[in-house]
């Protein structure tokens, strides 16, 4: 590490200072450029999408192509809404959470209780590998595991399985990380009172790391709620509201994909995308808020 210093040569110092300032300005410009897409995307969604969001948007199914075409040619807002997508997303994310949250928390506790063992390290590495698997591959997996052998066709269950596999590593990790922050004395105090192990888990470990667990769950939900690729391979879509987990079901991102591919419905993508984006933003803000509060305490 040699830093060229030349105190006699004023022009060299000036040159170095100039280089320093130019770099700083360039860095600030590039940083602003980096985050500008998010502002531009949200702007685009609001400007084009807000007209679509009204009561019908939440209470009705999408129109068929013909109805949409008539509305567009008359210069009106396309009638109908995304009720089938809303209920489908709700159903599948709920089911995925029911599968992934308990299992994920249990695995997280296992890793926290057995930190140094070889077996734990294998589990930890496998979890990390799972986290890196592209979502489209998880779609293929759910197709091979559920669509073909269990439901015999595209189904909400298959979609939930692919989303659950996606959520699992995130929940395992956040559980382990937030349990590590619990002071050992808390656990020891419970043991000293003769509390049985399962009650230590339920009454000490989970409550005292609840903030971290909840943040992890919210982030996992916000990750999977906008996933499109695995659902294309597993649940296909449905023009009607469907609560039967063995039948094809719609979801908000799938609706965006359908509208995008139908020239008559194309205006509907903006309202749906805006709503999905607002939803994800709110989940992110809540989890940030919880994380910040935990730091203060």
């Amino acid at each position, binding site marked *: *590490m040699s*830093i060229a*210093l030349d*105190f006699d040569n004023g022009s060299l110092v000036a040159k*170095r*200072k100039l*280089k*320093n300032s130019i*770099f*700083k300005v*360039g*860095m*600030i*410009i*590039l*940083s602003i450029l*980096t*985050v500008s*897409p*998010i502002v531009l*995307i949200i702007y*685009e969604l609001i400007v084009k999408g807000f007209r679509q969001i009204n009561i019908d948007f939440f209470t009705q199914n999408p129109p068929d192509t013909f109805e949409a075409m008539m509305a567009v040619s008359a210069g009106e807002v396309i009638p109908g809404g995304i009720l089938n997508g809303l209920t489908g997303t709700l159903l599948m994310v709920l089911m995925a959470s029911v599968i992934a949250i308990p299992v994920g928390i249990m695995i997280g506790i*296992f890793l926290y*209780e057995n930190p140094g063992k070889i*077996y*734990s390290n*294998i*589990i930890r*590495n*496998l*979890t*990390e*590998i799972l986290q*890196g*698997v*592209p*979502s*489209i*591959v998880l779609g293929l*997996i759910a197709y*091979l595991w559920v669509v073909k052998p269990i439901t015999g066709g595209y189904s909400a269950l298959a979609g939930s399985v692919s989303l659950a*596999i996606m959520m699992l590593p995130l929940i395992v990790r956040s559980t382990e990380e937030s349990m590590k922050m619990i002071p050992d004395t808390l656990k020891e105090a419970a043991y000293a009172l003769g509390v*049985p*192990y*399962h009650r230590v888990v339920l009454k000490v470990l989970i409550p005292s790391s609840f903030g971290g667990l909840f943040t992890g769950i919210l982030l996992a939900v916000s*990750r999977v*709620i*906008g996933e*499109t*690729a695995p659902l*294309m391979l597993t649940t296909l879509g449905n023009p009607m509201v469907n609560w039967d987990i063995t039948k094809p079901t719609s979801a908000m991102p799938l609706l*965006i*994909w359908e509208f*995008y591919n139908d020239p008559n419905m194309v205006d509907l993508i903006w309202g749906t*995308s805006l709503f*999905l*984006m607002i939803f*994800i*933003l709110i989940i*992110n803000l809540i989890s940030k808020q919880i994380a910040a509060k935990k730091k203060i305490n």
Partner: protein
Amino acid sequence: MKSENITKTLLLIASVIVVLISTGMVFSLINGAIPTFKEFGLSFIWSNEWNPTEGNENYGAVPFIAGTIITSMIALVICIPLSFASFLFIGEYFKGTFIANTLSALVDLLAGIPSIIYGLWGFYVLRPFIVELGLSPQGFGIFTAGLILAIMIIPYATSISKEIITMVPNELKEAAYSLGATQFEVIFRVVIPNAKSGIVAGFILAFGRALGETMAVTMLIGNANVVPDGLFSTGNTMASVIANQFGEADGLKLSSLIAIGLLLFVITGLINGLGKFIIKKLS
């Protein structure tokens, strides 16, 4: 004592689920890909023909492997300067200030936007822009896809690098400053050399993300089953060909798509493993 054992066994069983999912995944993908490898042998991996015409079927993965690697490389090249600027902004120049926290939150938010919304924005905003610049008549192609991928992977590269550079000891930086070094010199001679491997690992993991992105790429790459021959030519990635052709696939074609999924799984696994390995060595 007994209830303790029951609880511990339950936790152990839960952990086995991870093993079952991962091994089951590899097994199912290989099992699904067997018909393809039986028909074409290993030449599936280096054949560049993709012909679904019935009776004349011939499948090769090269166009998609090439498309995946090229788009991800374009994304990485664009991502490097942008992510460099933003992690220096957050972790060095404005460390701890309100504006740095805001920028950091915005960068994190980039990771939260669904792929399909990036695709829409790319299609309706970025693509016309590229057409206007006269770079490509339709605006579709590997460059457009790489550009949108770059925006999508910035948060992954930035979040790791900013953690690593804040861990560079202050004493080192202060020593350089006391010798009269400018901030620019401190960054390039002290901060970055000390954080080098962490930064590299961040970019490798970001690259791994880019390999598997599906929707945004599918909407922008132009979906041509050929090896791309220029920066603005159309192509297809492994993920986008699965998304595009899965709906009407059965038999040998379905098996070939699963084989592509297997290859994608292996490639992303290797890249992610490399990144994680470097990070583990650091800590």
